[in-house]
């Protein structure tokens, strides 16, 4: 038993953290925030060249073959840097869906492009409000052609390839893959402008089915992605705690650092506790992902629930610790607060994962 990342992966973590600190500065994030670019294309190119996007894609499909733990390490750093790139959409969702549900031919067709960043992937699931449930899927594929409306689709405005959740001719929801060339898209205004979100209107787009796994294959993609999202959320929460900690040490009120007041101390202690619990649950998820463990779904739901709570708490209480300047546009606190909600609502929000967690717990206890 060994419950820590290997030295190689710790080195990857340190390297990626250094790289992102240097290249993914707040100024870069703010270019997307202010609408100057839909995503940090230059940064994306560099990330692709380092093999990060394909970290968990086997080498035979053009990936780096670092395994899932490597991807988890990178996800945490993406969260820490509030990176304005389609990493989650391409790597955790589109590539994973094709890898887990696609045929060998589909893998060969799509994964190399996703891995080297020459194509951006997205995962078109939502059709407006509501969490991921089979009954919410009205998009439909008839005769190999997809019709329906998907929104919001993360990175839908910049993606080349979409994995789409739609119903087949028997009204059973499942996974499909398509090139997005020519699809009508509209960028959406959202809480977190540092990540592209779009509405996609499909009107007879030719698509291929990704396997025949039905809703099970959709849920499998969501479960696996939940662990990677959890790492990204842990990274964001950690960054917030560090920001709050530094500010509390340097800002004085009543002649003393505000971090010497118990109100601030205990707030930060609570952020720390939530973060550590989330981190530990994410670690177990990383192992389950790498080992394809039978309790991966429960591990994923647990990691997701903890991580969403930790990032939400850390991002809002980081603002509170900063006081007045914390809610200005100029200070970076709100970048994390926005990202926290974006990550928390993607692939199902907290109530959805809590309900699923108990479903899985009931199944396990019944076994």
């Amino acid at each position, binding site marked *: 038993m060994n419950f820590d990342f290997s030295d190689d992966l710790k080195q990857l973590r340190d390297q990626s953290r250094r790289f992102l600190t240097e290249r993914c500065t707040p100024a870069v994030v703010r270019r997307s925030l202010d609408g100057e670019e839909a995503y940090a294309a230059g940064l994306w190119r560099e990330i692709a060249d380092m093999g990060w996007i394909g970290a968990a894609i086997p080498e035979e499909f053009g990936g780096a073959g670092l395994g899932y733990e490597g991807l988890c390490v990178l996800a945490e750093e993406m969260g820490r840097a509030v990176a304005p790139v389609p990493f989650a959409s391409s790597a955790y969702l589109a590539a994973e869906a094709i890898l887990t549900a696609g045929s060998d031919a589909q893998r060969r067709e799509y994964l190399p492009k996703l891995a080297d960043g020459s194509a951006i992937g997205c995962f078109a699931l939502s059709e407006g409000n509501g969490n991921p449930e089979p009954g919410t899927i009205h998009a439909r594929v008839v005769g190999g052609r997809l019709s329906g409306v998907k929104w919001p689709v993360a990175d839908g405005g910049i993606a080349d390839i979409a994995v789409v959740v739609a119903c087949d001719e028997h009204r059973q929801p499942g996974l499909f893959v398509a090139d997005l060339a020519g699809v009508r898209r509209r960028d959406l205004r959202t809480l977190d402008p540092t990540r592209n979100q779009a509405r996609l209107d499909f009107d007879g787009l030719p698509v291929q089915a990704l396997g025949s796994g039905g809703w099970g294959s959709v849920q499998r993609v969501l479960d696996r992605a939940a662990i990677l999202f959890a790492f990204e959320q842990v990274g964001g929460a950690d960054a917030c705690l560090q920001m709050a900690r530094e500010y509390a040490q340097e800002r004085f009120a009543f002649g003393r650092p505000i971090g010497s007041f118990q109100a601030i101390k205990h707030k930060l202690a609570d952020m720390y506790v939530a973060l550590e619990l989330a981190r530990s649950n994410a670690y177990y998820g990383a192992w389950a992902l790498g080992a394809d463990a039978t309790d991966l779904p429960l591990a994923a739901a647990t990691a997701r629930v903890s991580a969403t709570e930790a990032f939400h708490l850390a991002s809002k209480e980081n603002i509170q610790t900063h*006081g007045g300047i914390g809610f200005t546009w100029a200070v970076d606190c709100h970048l994390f607060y926005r990202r926290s909600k974006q990550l928390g609502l993607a692939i199902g929000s907290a109530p959805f994962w809590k309900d699923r967690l108990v479903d899985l717990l009931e199944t396990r206890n019944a076994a």
Partner: protein
Amino acid sequence: MDFNDTSEEAVFRAEARAFLAANAELKAGARPVLRQSGVDAEAVKRCRAWQAKKDDAGFAGLTWPKRFGGREASPILQVIYNQEEDDFVVPRGLYEIGLGMCIPTMMTYATPEQLDRYVRPALRGEEVWCQLFSEPAGGSDLAALRTRAERDGDDWVINGQKIWTSGAHLSDFGIIVVRTDPNVPKHEGLTFFFLDMKSPGIEIRPIHQMSGARHFNEVFFTDVRVPDSQRLGAVGQGWKVSLTTLMNERLAVGDVQRPEVDDLVELSRKVRINGKPAIRNGAVREKIAEWHARSQGLKFTRFRTMTALSKGETPGPENSIHKLVNASKLQDIASYGLDLMGAGGLVVDDDLAEAYAMFQAALLSSPSSRIAGGSDEILRNIIAERVLGLPSDIRADKGKPFNQVPTGRR
């Protein structure tokens, strides 16, 4: 205990209702007014016209002395008016600080001549007032302000910077507290003035908030001259005067901010969980119940305060409870509403967002509610020390000359 109107109250309520019905649009069905962005020139015009109308009808200064156009009415009538007004869309946000904080402070400290000059135009909405207290280095430690004023003949000369001044760019006058002696402990070296916001040397820059709003300003003072006749209270007594202002702040009725519990109820009927309306889900119901109990508790706490006021009692620090409870509730309701929407909750586009995107707007504006006008932490301190009588924290700056108190890097 009686929730029914007395006959006098019933007459007044009918009068208020008639006035409102004749002059304003009912809220029901109207798009909610979110206090998102700054007040623009059009809005100023609307506010001004509405305030004049209210004054004409005698509803502007209900509890104020008759010599200033008030009615000297019981605070209960003010509650009744507010209850009625709450059903209508009325332009707001321009006069609250002036009428709620600045003019009441003037009434305590200004000369009769000054009151004759300033009170009526303020009440009629012809002149706008702002309050210049906070500074970048101060934050929760309000009295640690550094803007200084030095005596020069009959004038004082002000240099420094204020921050978080609502409506500074729209204001004609302001009240300000400044340091006139840095060699004594912080509370003892302050003096209070009112001044003309068009004075030479004042520069105003709006602050861009994370919500996108620009309510607040930074105000820079460079050799701004204020006549000594505009001093309120004695030299060195500025802190005492400020406390008058702040006590009035606590009494000011904050707008109920949307989304309220009923908005969450409505949302929960529309969005679905496992194929059923979310309101059928036990977790959703529990949260609605808890927030409803809190909202009602605050509403009736205010009624208790108004009853006390109408008996001549002075409202105290216990009124800190309102902002403390409301601000976090707003943030929590906003966040939870978005959770119920799922990924769709991210979207703020007008044609797609649920409920006029009010949940999203509140997510971004509520962090400022938990800080501006006294942070959650300061309000809990106030309750603990001033309501419950617990001993004060150990003060590192106690008795130290202001210019010898340690300061940090930020």
